[in-house]
């Protein structure tokens, strides 16, 4: 049984008579101890997927199909109370803006203690000690002082560390990190990535990282899912995805990354066109076909097949052959 199993998940947003298909038949599995990346650009559906995993969907979202199972328990059919019990020991979240994770009027220490409400047999002093130890573990140099601070008194990097500590205090089996380093400087980004990588070895849980940054994927992920137009267009081990991408979108995305281009480019490559509008009715063909340099006539009219390229490696494309 996988730690996380998402099967054929489809989700729509409805607003003022417009229905947007934000996720279309998304399937993925995460095994214990893995770091899985979900990479995509804005509008790809990656943030929606994060919201599903975290149980924080907006009111106008509707799941039309599929299941999200954590160790076999379906999150979607679970009543709210059961879901709450699962959040915490099951899933913990690290957000892009760690300011959102904390209440601005309470000290970090108070909140880190309160986060441990599921540990019924520990005293507040024990919980505070546990919080202090966890802050030290995520690299905060003076954890006792940090406990007394208010969220706004910490720098962005420190807040993100504290947010990771808060998530780890729940001893989650799955840590979902949504753009965890986007708001940080490169030097702090490198430190946070290093921290996450270390946590993976020290804690048994799995990490799902949602990002638009291929550098983050390259530094830390074991496997990658590339999202485009609400679908997973390619999945595979990070090395294969980087060195032998199968889907034209993945190829284009990697080609665009300035870090992947050696020397000095006279002109930077781009992907012409725009992400597809996902308003219903969504066109039948491949979502990437209008921007795809290798599109065939059938790409525009027929939905692309999921071509299995190996164990846990597949691409959603007419042109790919196994």
């Amino acid at each position: 049984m996988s730690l996380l199993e998402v099967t054929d998940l489809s989700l729509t947003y409805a607003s003022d008579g417009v229905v947007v298909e934000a996720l279309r038949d998304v399937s993925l599995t995460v095994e214990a101890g893995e770091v899985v990346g979900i990479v995509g650009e804005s509008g790809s559906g990656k943030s929606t997927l994060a919201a599903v995993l975290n149980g924080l969907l907006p009111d106008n979202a509707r799941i039309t199909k599929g299941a999200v199972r954590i160790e076999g328990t379906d999150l979607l059919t679970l009543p709210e109370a059961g879901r709450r019990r699962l959040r915490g020991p099951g899933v913990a979240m690290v957000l892009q803006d760690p300011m959102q994770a904390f209440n601005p009027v309470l000290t970090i220490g108070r909140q880190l203690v309160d986060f441990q409400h599921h540990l019924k047999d520990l005293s507040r002093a024990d919980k505070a000690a546990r919080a202090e130890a966890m802050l030290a573990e995520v690299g905060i140099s003076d954890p006792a002082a940090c406990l007394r601070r208010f969220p706004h008194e910490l720098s962005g990097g420190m807040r993100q560390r504290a947010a990771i500590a808060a998530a780890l205090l729940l001893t989650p089996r799955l840590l979902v990190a949504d753009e965890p380093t986007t708001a940080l400087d490169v030097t702090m980004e490198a430190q946070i990535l290093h921290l996450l990588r270390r946590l993976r070895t020290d804690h048994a849980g799995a990490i799902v990282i949602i990002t638009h940054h291929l550098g983050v994927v390259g530094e830390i992920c074991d496997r990658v899912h590339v999202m485009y137009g609400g679908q997973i267009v390619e999945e595979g081990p990070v090395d294969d995805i980087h060195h032998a991408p199968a889907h034209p979108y993945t190829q284009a995305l990697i080609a665009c990354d300035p870090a992947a281009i050696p020397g000095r480019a006279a002109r930077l490559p781009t992907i012409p066109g725009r992400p597809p509008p996902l308003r219903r009715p969504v066109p039948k063909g491949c979502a990437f076909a209008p921007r795809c340099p290798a599109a065939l006539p059938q790409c525009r009219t027929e939905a692309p097949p999921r071509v299995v390229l190996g164990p846990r490696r597949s691409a959603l494309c007419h042109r790919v052959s196994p």
Partner: protein
Amino acid sequence: MTAVLGARDVAIDLPLPGGFLARRQLNILSGITLSVDKGETLALVGESGSGKTTLARAMIGLLPVSAGVLEFRGQPLSDPACRRRLRTEAAMLFQDARGSLSPRVSVGNAVIEPLAIHRRPRDRATAGRMLAKVGLAPEMAARFPHELSGGQARRVSVARALALDPALLVADEPTAGLDVSVQGEILNLLADLRRDLGLALVLISHNLAMVRHVSDRIAVLYLGRLVETGPTDQVLARPAHPYTQGLIAAEPNPDPRKRRDHPAITGEIPSLIARPRGCGFASRCPFAQDRCRAETPTLRPLAPGREAACHFAETMTSQPIRETIP
């Protein structure tokens, strides 16, 4: 040839918040000497807190300098006539492009705003032509800022910046918040404009991977001091300052085969209020010696066009960069 923009020993102090009559001043930048020529791109890089945005704001005349001279086309910016000239001949691209557009002004009116301010001739077609220059359809003129995508807002702000044919463009993180596939479009657009209009471009960024492709020269700021300047390719190939080395090494690499085991620089940029004695970077520098904590290094020439503020700059450049990171 006189530089389009020159800074000579510039210092900037800003008032600390609080205090009514006698406000305490905090030194943000000092000893900044730089210049940008016609058709040249200078990249200002550094972490947040390094003072790069403050410097950009001073360059565009939003902040006065506290010491030293900032010159635009050979005239000091303290001269009101020169400041007036700067208003029409220099433009800024803000980091938050959408936020730099007035929320209740349509795109069409936003791009001709500089013409309206300076009472230059304009008609209904002007906005459409200006939008076309940056690759936007003329119909976009009817939109409002909140109806634009990130890339579109960025293009609109570029169109507005070009309205008066500026000689200098200061771009603060011009690709912040953009998707990778759109970043290139904006950078290519800026490169074209620079080449065709002879723009002098000051590019503020912390993204070295991007800076490598688009800038001619690079100036690295740390805690309000210049720590290294020089031609981009040379600085990135053989950085002379340990901070520059750390920034390069911290860039996440998309290739999983090139993963590093250590974060390049640990810790955080110190607070400006508690500026350390000696070298500002000593607290995070893997090579720091006693001398670094006692004696402040000055920016000194290393090679033609290259300067660094490190006591051990010569030893730094003599080693390949990856090995200098412990």
